[in-house]
């Protein structure tokens, strides 16, 4: 009973937290689509990261993939909170993939670009928090 209630609370928190990541990724996607990442005028380090070749995959802004990932987390966490057990599996897998990608992107910023973008760091913090929630959530009965 306690485990069930804890699961619901944690999945709900995950859904809410993922909304923050979704907002961040949506903002970065819009920046990429409007070309704002291709010019100087804002934070120099932000554009150094967002205007780099690492910010696109096959010409598609990486932020768009982030938006889809966060929306997936939001969806799976919502369904998991309502007791859909399979959603938990997809949630864990999605967060796991996001965690690995985040580690790679942090490596890119730290060791390849030598620049950090605050929006990317915020996203990384969100992913770490989601990973912590995923680890803390008790397994299904």
């Amino acid at each position, binding site marked *: 009973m306690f485990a069930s209630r804890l699961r619901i609370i944690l999945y709900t928190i995950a859904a809410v937290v993922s*909304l923050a990541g*979704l*907002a961040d990724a*949506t*903002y970065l*996607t*819009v*920046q990429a*689509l*409007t*070309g*704002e990442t*291709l*010019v*100087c*005028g804002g934070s*120099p380090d932000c*554009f*150094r990261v967002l*205007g780099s070749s690492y910010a696109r995959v096959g010409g598609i802004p990486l932020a768009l993939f982030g*938006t889809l990932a966060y*929306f997936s987390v*939001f*969806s799976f966490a*919502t*369904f998991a*909170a*309502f007791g*859909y057990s399979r959603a938990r599996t997809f949630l864990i897998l999605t967060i796991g993939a996001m965690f690995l990608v985040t580690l790679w992107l942090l490596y890119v910023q730290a060791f390849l670009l030598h620049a950090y973008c605050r929006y990317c760091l915020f996203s990384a913090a969100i992913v770490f928090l989601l990973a912590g929630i995923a680890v803390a959530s008790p397994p299904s009965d």
Partner: protein
Amino acid sequence: MKRYLPFIIVVVGALVTLASGTVLYRAKRPSVFTIPKSALVSGSGAADSIHIRGSANAPVTIEEFGDFQCPPCANLSDPINKLERDYHSRLRVIYRHFPFAIHQHAREAALASEAAGMQGRFWEMHDLLYREQSNWSNATDVPALFNTYAEMLGLNIDRFKKDMDSDKAKARVELDEQRGAALGLANTPTIFINNRQVPPASLNPAGLRAALDAAMNAKPAK
């Protein structure tokens, strides 16, 4: 009802995301504008004193407002040079200084290019500064590095140093900045092709070439 609640929540979430993304996109979409007739470049006369590369009679003009410490500007430097080679006498390029205060050495670099220009080597210094941007941007002794570049270009160093500090060089840079400010520019690079701004999303080699081709096709080649 409870069975459908998660579906409703997810659908609402999707709609809110799409709606807010659309609103944000419309708000952030940059204004693309055209240089008014009153501000068109004649390319002649000491009052203009601008840096032009290419044929004076070229049917298409690229006017770039750049910052030598701006990485996107450096990224476009070689592609623009390639366009000049590809389009030969059909294209001329104008460079304007628009250094940002957040770029610590941008103004110095602009003055260095003007000082080189006073010895007839503006474009060589322009290309060199963009090519070496990652080196001098992070250097501890930038003036020494600029002097080295001047030596590489065969300039008279004493004159170069003096010209860098001269009022004439500062006035040239300020003139370009005033032009940019009067046009309402906020970013670099800002590129106009035949006085029509290239949208920021097209500021890449393929986008520039497409915009150039459109301008070329709009005018008969001479």
